[in-house]
């Protein structure tokens, strides 16, 4: 979704025609878990999509960071979200508050065949793998007819 997401948001989501829902797939161990937890912790303060954008934009930095330094990195990024209560965000992140819920959702999804990413569902119709903007637009337009 990474590359086509901004265009989809501009064309369909901002216009009120499409609701975009993000569901985490935990395919890369600790890094997946920690980044998803950061997004969920920001989400508790209505800042999920802001953190979502930061995380996708800086994937290479997460890859380059050792597991024991991930929390520090994510806390630093949290500071960029000015409306985020930093104390609550830090508590959420260090306590790993959303982890069980994320793991449960991931397990439920795997039981339904969601084992790779990205996978999309447009009103229940599944599209697997990265999609071009043309393919995504065609699928969304068909669903909107």
């Amino acid at each position, binding site marked *: 979704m990474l590359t086509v997401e*901004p265009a989809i948001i501009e064309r369909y989501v901002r216009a009120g025609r499409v609701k975009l*829902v993000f569901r985490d797939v935990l395919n*890369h161990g600790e890094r997946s878990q920690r*980044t998803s937890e950061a997004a*969920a912790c920001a989400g508790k303060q209505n800042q999920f999509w802001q953190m979502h954008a930061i995380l*996708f934009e800086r994937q290479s930095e997460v890859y380059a960071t050792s597991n024991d330094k991930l929390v520090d990195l994510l806390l630093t990024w949290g500071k960029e979200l000015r409306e985020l209560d930093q104390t609550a965000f830090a508590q959420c992140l260090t306590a790993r508050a959303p982890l069980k819920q994320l793991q449960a959702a991931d397990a439920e999804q795997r039981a339904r065949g969601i084992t790779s990413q990205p996978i999309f569902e447009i*009103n229940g119709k599944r599209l697997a793998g990265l999609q071009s903007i043309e393919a995504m637009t065609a699928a*969304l337009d068909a669903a909107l007819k």
Partner: protein
Amino acid sequence: MIRQFFVCLAALALGLTACANATPAPSAPTIAPTAMPATRAPSTPTIAPPTLPATPAPSAANVIPQSVTQDGFFALGNPSAPVTLIDYSDFM
């Protein structure tokens, strides 16, 4: 022959002491790079501000309604939009 040997040895010893005396000298250049932060300092304020607006999506997220679905997932956009696009993805 022996005399020549001692002369060489003395010359070598002098050379080594000269080198030993010279060892403080390299520390001078190593000090110079540590002074670099002073020159770097002014650039930090210019780096800090652009990091926030660099991400396009936060601005969209700031103006488009955010919600949480009944099953607890984060959603962006009109909660009653005719089409729901679920993105199963990994931040990695």
